[in-house]
């Protein structure tokens, strides 16, 4: 009994004298490694990269249409927003390939010919609990598409779609930046971003609880 205690004492005495530096060093190693893991590796691992089925060139199409975005992304008669065009709209022009672009050829062969809808990955797709009225924003408030979606119409190619492994959301919803900072309105599309704009623009703030926007304005 007493001998074992003696040993313990010795070990601790030894450790005390020469491991102080090691302790600090290991602390720093652990600290830095986990910071790197948390800030750089983790965000990379969290999202899976998905390619769009067809690489779409917005610029090319903008040149061909008269009505800007609304030529393809239009409102239905009941005021609902049709979103990404269905095959039906595309076929109007693309019954046959009109150009040489391999992407178009792929589109015509894979989808038009087989009458399959293109499984577009939608960057701005909100979760099911969200109700968003394009009509209220575009028609009543007179907002531009660019304000929230950014200059997508100026893109010649579709960027990679990043999907969160856990939540299934697009990265464009939660935000590009891990720290939550955003440069443009379209860098993030979370509830707080909607709320921020509503407060700024003095949209009815009718909630009894929060004195801000009521839940059912944007939720269903």
């Amino acid at each position, binding site marked *: 009994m007493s001998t074992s205690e003696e040993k313990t004492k010795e070990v601790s005495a030894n450790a005390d004298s020469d491991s102080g530096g090691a302790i600090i060093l290991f602390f720093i190693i652990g600290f830095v490694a986990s910071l790197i893991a948390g800030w750089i590796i983790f965000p990379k691992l969290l999202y899976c990269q998905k390619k769009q089925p067809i690489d779409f060139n917005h610029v090319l199409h903008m040149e061909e249409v008269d009505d800007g975005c609304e030529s393809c992304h239009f409102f239905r008669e009941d005021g609902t927003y049709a979103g990404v065009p269905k095959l039906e709209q595309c076929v109007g022009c693309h019954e046959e390939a009109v150009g040489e672009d391999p992407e178009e050829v792929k589109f015509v062969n894979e989808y038009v010919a087989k009458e399959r809808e293109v499984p577009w990955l939608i960057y701005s797709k909100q979760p099911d609990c969200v109700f968003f009225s394009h009509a209220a924003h575009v028609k009543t408030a007179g907002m531009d598409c660019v304000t929230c979606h950014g200059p997508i119409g100026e893109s010649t190619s579709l960027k990679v779609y990043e999907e969160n492994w856990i939540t299934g959301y697009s990265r464009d919803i939660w935000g590009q930046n891990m720290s939550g900072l955003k440069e443009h309105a379209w860098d993030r599309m979370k509830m707080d971003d909607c709320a921020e704009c509503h407060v700024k623009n003095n949209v009815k703030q009718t909630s009894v609880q929060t*004195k801000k926007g009521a839940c059912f304005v944007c939720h269903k």
Partner: protein
Amino acid sequence: MFPFIFEWIWDMSHIVFMGGLWYALNIIGIGMTYCIIKAVVDTYQGKGGHHHDEACECGCDNHH
């Protein structure tokens, strides 16, 4: 819970309630930080390195 959260409003209820909360959290946080830092400092000053059966020189009543 933070002023940048959607539900936050600068009104009496929040100030009183969250004031109380943050007050308590701060006491706990600052108190613990103080204890830990002081313990680190004490350790480097060589305090507490006594053997278990010696009297505690700091005079605390831990062992009585």
